[in-house]
């Protein structure tokens, strides 16, 4: 039987007490200066989700109808050895984030990174803290809208990670083509882990970020753990084993989500864009210059020709945007290598709609 919120609250406080000898009364006293009448204090994060450990921080959200100001960054507090991170947010910001998430899920545009980047998934985590968190003081937060907030929070993470999976799968295959096996195996592992993270959250578990994946697999999704096993380590020699490792990763993602992730399936949605690189010819030398980054790249005749080819295709002096599937051979390798150096951007024409993820997953489930 699922534990009540009161039971979860008692369990969380017992953990915090055992780790730090700090009661919730003391925590609430420390953060009292941030409170407004009628607001709620919600504990989320790994400790609240029965993960975490003695060195984990206690993540709190303070919000409510009377919350008048929002913090720009999490406000860090230290109570003895306990670190308490507090997001103070006007309730309308919470509601707006759900609304924005629902709108994003309804459209075909890219979601990837728009609710927090790869390193900081702040908004993804916020939505899950509101839904799966434990109210440790104040009334249970009443959200105004009648939308199914749990479904929105879950689907947003599933879609974000579905799109990460697609992006990593493409990069892994492009890296193999460009003879960059290390980048290829690294992205192959990322693709599988994104697929697994999406699967775990789809099962109704709160999102806790990438770092808890293996604990989740071990404790709450053991049937998926075996799919991760071959990818826990990268090959000792990516030069010889890289292509097979990538192929196996693509197959594992497909098994989990049913999406066709071969390069020809996904590259048509992706394009390179050039923020500021320009070609300069000095005597018989050719170089690409990024004034923004203060970077100069020497290119050989073949590469210079490839760059000019991209420019002439676009009808501009320098190429601005070109499809990943529109260039082959040396132009494809050059594009990838410039992206690898942070000098080109990779854009996606469309995201992976949640309906597509669900329907492909259903089909994959039937196949297996």
């Amino acid at each position, binding site marked *: 039987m699922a534990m009540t919120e009161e039971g979860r609250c008692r369990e969380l406080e017992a953990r915090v007490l055992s780790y730090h000898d700090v009661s919730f009364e003391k925590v609430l006293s420390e953060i009292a200066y941030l409170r407004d009448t009628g607001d709620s204090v919600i504990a989320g994060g790994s400790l609240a989700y029965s*993960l975490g*450990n*003695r*060195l*984990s*921080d206690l993540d709190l959200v303070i919000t409510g109808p009377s919350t008048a100001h929002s913090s*720009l*960054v999490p406000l*860090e507090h*230290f109570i003895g050895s306990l*670190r308490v991170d507090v997001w103070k947010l006007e309730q309308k910001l919470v509601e707006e984030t759900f609304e924005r998430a629902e709108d994003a899920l309804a459209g075909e545009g890219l979601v990837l990174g728009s609710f927090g*980047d*790869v*390193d900081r998934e702040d908004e993804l985590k916020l939505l899950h803290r509101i839904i799966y968190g434990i109210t440790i003081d104040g009334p249970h937060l009443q959200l105004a809208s009648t939308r199914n907030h749990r479904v929105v929070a879950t689907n947003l993470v599933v879609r974000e990670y579905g799109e990460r999976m697609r*992006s*990593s799968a493409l*990069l892994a295959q492009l*890296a193999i083509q460009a003879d*960059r096996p*290390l*980048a290829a195996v*690294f*992205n192959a592992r*990322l693709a599988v882990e994104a697929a697994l993270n999406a699967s775990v959250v789809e099962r109704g578990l709160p999102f806790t970020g*990438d*770092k*808890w*994946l*293996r*604990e989740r*697999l*071990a404790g709450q999704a053991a049937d998926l753990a075996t799919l991760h096993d071959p990818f*826990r*380590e*990268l090959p*000792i020699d990516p030069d010889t084993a890289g292509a097979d490792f990538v192929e196996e990763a693509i197959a594992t993602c497909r098994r989990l989500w049913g999406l066709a992730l071969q390069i020809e399936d996904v590259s048509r949605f992706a394009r390179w864009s050039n923020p500021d690189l320009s070609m300069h010819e000095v005597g018989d030398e050719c170089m690409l210059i*990024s004034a923004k*980054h*203060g*970077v100069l790249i020497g290119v050989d005749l073949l590469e210079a020709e490839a760059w000019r080819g991209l420019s002439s295709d676009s009808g501009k002096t320098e190429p601005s945007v070109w499809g990943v599937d529109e260039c082959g051979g040396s132009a494809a390798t050059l594009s990838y290598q410039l*992206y*690898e*150096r*942070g*000098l080109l951007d*990779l854009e996606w024409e469309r995201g992976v709609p949640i309906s597509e993820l669900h329907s492909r997953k259903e089909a994959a489930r039937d196949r297996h």
Partner: protein
Amino acid sequence: MIGIETDARRYVWCRSNALWVIGMPALTFLQDVHGAQEAGQEGLLRYAARGIGDACAVALHVAVNQARPIPPAPLRTAWALEGIGGHALWEACWQLVRGIEAVPAGQIPARCEALISEVQAIVGKMPNILTPEGHYPAIALARDWAKALDAVGEPAPLPSNWALPS
């Protein structure tokens, strides 16, 4: 007097990014390593060790080779490992990034600490904002770097609304 024999803009950008954007997560991951070891959370332990290998490789490449710009996250590690090929710490970074499943969990924290210590000896002391002792000094240091970046016409790698006086 010591003249830094390189372009000021590049030097300040690379040092500050190596320490703040890339280096800082290494100490966060180290805390995860210690917490995970104590709690017997081997999955978290190994994930955090990967993160340390990744952060150390990139910080080294940016600081030692003054490499810029820093590529997007999915390509950063391979870029950095290629860039520090031949460096004495390459192997230690690669082992952690690759995943060291055969190494007993109990040995991993020492490996992580050793690598961070050696990288800090080269790159500089990475800030640790996760402790009461490090919180305010680290923020003060960030503000100093932000001013230096401003002086050479580079944007600060931190939100200016709290790193710079308004």
